[in-house]
C-alpha cells in the first residue's frame, strides 16, 4: 500500500510539468475565451485601474483650475464624478460604473482636499477612486468587461466576412483533406516498396513537413508570382500568365495546392508505419491464394490501415480547418480569409477581443462536431470495407 502511494506520488510528480503547462496555457485560456465571448472584452483596457496618476494633476487637468482658484460649492455644481473618472482613465466606462460613481462618489471631499492642498502624491487610479467612494469600491479594483449576452453571436450572423471565412475554411478542408490523404497513401506505398534509393525519396517527401512554414511560403510566393516558374511553364503551352496569389479567385486554390504539398509527406510517415505493421505472412498467404497486387491492396492493405486512415483524416480535417500561417503569409484579400485568420484579425487588429473569442468558440464547436460525426461515420465506413 505504502509503495503504491509512493508510486502514485512519483507518477504525478513526473507528469506535473505537463499538467501544469496544459492547465496554464490551454485549459485556463479556453475557459477565459468562453467567458470573454459573452463580453465586450478589450485587452487594451485590462490595466485601466492599475495605471498611476498624480492626484493633483488629475483633478487640475479636469477642472482646468489651480487649487487656490477653486471655490468648492461653486465647482461642486458642475462636477460630474463619472466624467472626471473618464477623463482620468482616458477612455469611456460602462453605464453601471457611471451610475455607481454618480451615486457614491464623494465629490465634495475630493474638491475640498484639492482646494486645501491636502491632495498629494501618486496613486493607482483604482485606489484613488476607492478612497472617495462610499460604496461599490469593488467595481474599481480591476477591469471587468461588460457582459453583453449574445450580442457577439448575433453580430456574427450579420457579419458578411464571418460567412466568407467559414466558407473558405470549409472549402479548404474539403479539398485538401481527401487529396492529401490519398497522396500520402500513394507516397507511403511507393516508399514501402523495395526500390533502389527509396530512403532518398522518403527523405525528400518528408522535407516539406519539417521546413518552416514561413520559408515554404516565401518559396511559393516566388513560384506563384507573375513571371515565376509556374507561369513560365504554363506559357510554354500558350497559357497567359496568372497572378496566382494576388487574384482573389486563384489565391485560395494556390495556397491549397501548397498545403497539400507540405502535409502529404508528413502523413506519409503515418501510413508508412501502418504499412510496416502489416504482417508479411498475411500477404504471403494471399499470394499463395492467387490474389494479384490490386486485390491485395484493396482487400488486405487498405482495411489493415484503417486506424491510420482514421487518424490522418481526422488530423487533416482539424489541421486544414485551423490553417493559419500560410494564409497569414500569402493571402492578401479579405475575400480569401479563413476562420483562424479572421479570429486573429479581430483580436489583434480590429480591437475586438470579445468578438474574436465568440468566433473562436463557434469555430471550436463546429470542429468538435465535425470530428465527432466523422469518427462515427469513418468507423462504420471502414468496417464495411
Amino acid at each position: 500500500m505504502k509503495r503504491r502511494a509512493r508510486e502514485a506520488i512519483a507518477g504525478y510528480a513526473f507528469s506535473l510539468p505537463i499538467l501544469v503547462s496544459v492547465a496554464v496555457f490551454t485549459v485556463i485560456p479556453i475557459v477565459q475565451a468562453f467567458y470573454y465571448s459573452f463580453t465586450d472584452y478589450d485587452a487594451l483596457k485590462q490595466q485601466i485601474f492599475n495605471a498611476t496618476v498624480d492626484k493633483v494633476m488629475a483633478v487640475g487637468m479636469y477642472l482646468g483650475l489651480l487649487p487656490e482658484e477653486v471655490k468648492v460649492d461653486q465647482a461642486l455644481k458642475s462636477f460630474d464624478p463619472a466624467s472626471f473618472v473618464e477623463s482620468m482613465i482616458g477612455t469611456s466606462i460602462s453605464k453601471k460604473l457611471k451610475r455607481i460613481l454618480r451615486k457614491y462618489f464623494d465629490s465634495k471631499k475630493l474638491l475640498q482636499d484639492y482646494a486645501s492642498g491636502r491632495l498629494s502624491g501618486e496613486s493607482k487610479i483604482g485606489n484613488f477612486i476607492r478612497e472617495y467612494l462610499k460604496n461599490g469600491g469593488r467595481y474599481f479594483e480591476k477591469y471587468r468587461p461588460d457582459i453583453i449576452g449574445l450580442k457577439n453571436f448575433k453580430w456574427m450572423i450579420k457579419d458578411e466576412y464571418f460567412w466568407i471565412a467559414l466558407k473558405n475554411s470549409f472549402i479548404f478542408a474539403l479539398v485538401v483533406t481527401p487529396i492529401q490523404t490519398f497522396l500520402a497513401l500513394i507516397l507511403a506505398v511507393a516508399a514501402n516498396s523495395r526500390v533502389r534509393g527509396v530512403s532518398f525519396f522518403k527523405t525528400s517527401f518528408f522535407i516539406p513537413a519539417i521546413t518552416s512554414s514561413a520559408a515554404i511560403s516565401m518559396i511559393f510566393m516566388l513560384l506563384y508570382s507573375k513571371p515565376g516558374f509556374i507561369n513560365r511553364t504554363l506559357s510554354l503551352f500558350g497559357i497567359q500568365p496568372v497572378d496566382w496569389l494576388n487574384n482573389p479567385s486563384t489565391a485560395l486554390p494556390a495556397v491549397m495546392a501548397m498545403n497539400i504539398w507540405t502535409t502529404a509527406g508528413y502523413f506519409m510517415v503515418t501510413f508508412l508505419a501502418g504499412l510496416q505493421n502489416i504482417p508479411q505472412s498475411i500477404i504471403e498467404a494471399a499470394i499463395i491464394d492467387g490474389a494479384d497486387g490490386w486485390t491485395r491492396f484493396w482487400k488486405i492493405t487498405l482495411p489493415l490501415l484503417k486506424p491510420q486512415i482514421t487518424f490522418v483524416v481526422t488530423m487533416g480535417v482539424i489541421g486544414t480547418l485551423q490553417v493559419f500561417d500560410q494564409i497569414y503569409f500569402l493571402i492578401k484579400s479579405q475575400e480569401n480569409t479563413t476562420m483562424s485568420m479572421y479570429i486573429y484579425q479581430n483580436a489583434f487588429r480590429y480591437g475586438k477581443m470579445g468578438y474574436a473569442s465568440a468566433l473562436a468558440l463557434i469555430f471550436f464547436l463546429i470542429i468538435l462536431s465535425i470530428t465527432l460525426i466523422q469518427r462515427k461515420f469513418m468507423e462504420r465506413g471502414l468496417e464495411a470495407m
Partner: protein
Amino acid sequence: MRSKVFLTVILLVAALTFSEVVVRLGGWPSSPVEQQALQAAVDEFNKEHAGQIKIVYEPIPGNYRVKLTAMLSAGNAPDIFYLDVNWAEEFFSKGVIEPLDFYIKMYKLDLNDFYPNLLNAFKYKGHIYGLPKDFSTLVLFYNKKMFDEVGLPYPNSSWTWFDLLYAATKLTRDTNGDGKPDVWGLALYPNALNRVIPFILQAGGEVVKEDLSTALGEEEAIEGMKFYFDLHNRWNVAIAPSDVGAGWLGDAFGKQKVAMVMSGPWMLGFLKENFPEVDFGVAELPHLKKRATMVYTVCYAIPKTSKHKKEAFIAMKFLLGKGMKIFTEKLGVLPSRKSLAEKDKNDSIKKAFYAGVKYAYPWKIPTPSGISSKAIDEINTRFLKVWNGEMTLDQAVKEIIENYNSWVR
C-alpha cells in the same frame, strides 16, 4: 582583505544601479542600422545622465503591434515606445497612453519647432499623446534614362495630373517588338487606400467629414479614385509591382520596368544598395486642384501604467532633441523638427520630401471609436476588385458608403 574589496565593489554597483531610474524604450527596428542609430542616441543620453536616469533600449522585432498590445494589457509595457500614426489613435482612445500636455509645459519642450502636420497627427480629443520622431512623405521618383529615351522633360513641382498622364502614356512602350508594352509609365499598388488618398485630396476631396463619417462618396473623392484606377484600367499606363515580378514599388522601379513610382525616402537606401546603376530624380507629387501627399510618421509615447513617467519624459525630450540629431544623421531619415531639417536645405533629393510635409496628410483614418483597421481592410479589398476589373468603382463606393459605419464601430 580581498573579500572586503569585493563586498565594497558589489555594494557600490548595487548603490549605483538602485539610485538610477531605469526607463525602458521599446520600438521596432526596421533594420540593423536603425537599431544601431537609436542605440547610439541612447548611449549618449546614458552618458549625460549617468547615475540618474538610464535608458534601456529593448528592440521588439516581429509583430510589434500584437506584442505591444499584449504588453500593455499585462501592464509591463516599456516606459517609452513607438506608435505608428496609422493605428496610434486606437491606443489613445483606449486610455493606455499618457497625455503629454502637462509634461510638455513642465519641461518646456518647444513645440513650434515641430512640423505642425506631424504634431497634429498625434492629437486626440484636444490632448497631445505622442511626439513625432521622424517622418516619410511620398514623392515622385523618376528614371532619368527612361525619360531621356522618349525625349520628355523631367517631372517638376509644377506638374499636374495631365502632365503625369501624358508622360506615363509616352513612357509605356514596347521595346522588344512583340506588340505588347514591356515598360510602363507608372507602378501603383492595386489595393492601398493610403496611396489613393493623395489623389482624393488633390482633387479637392476629403477622407472623412467634420463628423468623422466617410467622405469617400463625395464627388471630388470619387474623381481622385477614378483617376488612380483609370491609370491602370482605362489608360493602361500603370501596372502593379507583381505584374513585373517585383515585390514592391521600389523593386519594380529598380528593375527599370517602370519609369515612375510614388514612394518614400526608404527608396533612397534601397536603390543605393540594390540598384546603384539606376539614375533617378525626385519631384513633388503632381497636383490638380490642391497639392497633397501622404506622410507616414511614428511617435514616442508613454503608457499610463509607467512607474517613471517624469523620467520617461526627460528621456523622450532628449530623444526628440540631441537624440533625434544623432538618430536621423546616422540613419539618413527625415527629422520631425524644422531646426534639424536645416542641414538638408541644399540636398536636391531631400528637398521634395520636406516640401511635402507642409501639405501632407498623416496616414490615418480618424473614426469615432478610434478603430480604423477594419475599414481600411474592407476598402482595400474592394479596391483590388476595381483594379482587377471585377467591380466598378461606383459599385465599390456604393458598398463602402453603405457599410462604413459598421466597420468603424
